[in-house]
């Protein structure tokens, strides 16, 4: 009896695990355009507005900046419109055959550029500082 109970528990948890993934895929599928569903990996617009954070008294420029972010799928076959590393292409193949072991490649920035900010410090000095790697200029599958 104990063995049977244990076996049933294991089976139940295994099935629960499977359903979890299935749900995830279904929901992603269902969400479609708006939730990162079937869109290929791409750069999306994100504007960070310093002014709305109430920082006008010390940030002189800019009012805000286009930070952008990366979103979308990296799934087989990776179209050549998504700049993917060679390894990412191999990764999609492995993911296709063992989806629960090897993740699909990630959609992440492949090129970044700097943003400069002009601001007052506590002493009333003015600082013009360049912040590297703050703006996504392009995304890709990695």
């Amino acid at each position, binding site marked *: 009896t104990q063995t049977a109970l244990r076996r049933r528990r294991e089976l139940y948890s295994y099935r629960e695990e499977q359903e979890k993934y299935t749900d995830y895929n279904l929901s992603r599928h269902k969400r479609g355009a708006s939730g990162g569903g079937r869109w290929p990996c791409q750069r999306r617009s994100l504007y960070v507005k310093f002014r709305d954070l109430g920082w006008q008294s010390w940030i*002189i420029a*800019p009012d805000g*900046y286009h930070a952008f972010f990366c979103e979308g799928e990296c799934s087989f076959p990776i179209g050549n419109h998504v700049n993917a590393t060679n390894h990412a292409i191999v990764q999609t193949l492995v993911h296709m055959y063992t989806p629960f072991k090897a993740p699909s490649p990630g959609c992440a920035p492949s090129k970044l550029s700097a943003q400069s*900010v002009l601001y007052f410090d506590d002493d*009333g000095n*003015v600082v013009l*500082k360049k*912040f590297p790697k703050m703006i996504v200029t392009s995304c890709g599958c990695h």
Partner: protein
Amino acid sequence: AYYVDNGIGQTEKMHEMNSRDKRELQHEILTLLGLHQRPKPKSSTTKDSAPTFMLSLYNSITSDNGVVKDDSTFHTSHNVTVGDSVVQPIEGTDIIISFVNKAKKVPHLRHEKDRTFFFDFSDVTAKETVVGAELRLYKEKSKKWKKNHEFQIQVFMLRQGKDPEDKILDPLSNITVNANTEGWITFNMTRAAELWTRQPEANLGLFIKVLFVSKGREINPNKLGIVSYRGSEDKKPFMVGFFSSQELVYPQR
């Protein structure tokens, strides 16, 4: 709040932040900017001389909305230097800071406020390397002398002498102008900035002398039209430091 575009050319508010979210977002972005907390400057008008200069520099260095034209370092065709053998400090610079003159708060300087300057470099960390520095003085036309009379403006770094009261004048830079010269005059302060960044306690300020060349005697800088602490805010003297810095290291959180 968090807005998204709804696909037909409008933006919709997706999520309104509560005050805790907003505070956390501010903290994240301040950390990103390498700041522990938001600065609270006593005066923050951009009409003063230094902010005006820095804003024009910012506009010339960056393309629209502050994006740096080249990811390596600032570079510009902006002629930031007038006169004196100042190195073109913009190339290879990551941070540019203007410094406000605080001589009136320094006991050994405040008795000669027309000739003395103190720029506080104590916030510049050893991680920053001085690429160049300049002192900017505004000179108005002087009606007291003939147009073509020449005057040499000499800038000295104050160094500690043997006893506490003793101060030594270490020549830094000098420029010869005419009585009717008008505008910003730039002096090379790179050596002083390097010393003050390395040894903040060695910063005892600057001292200027104006020499009537043909007569070989000193005159008061005010008489030549050099704007000092009493002048209008948009012509007050200030210093600019150009620094390259190591990659920002974000604190582990």
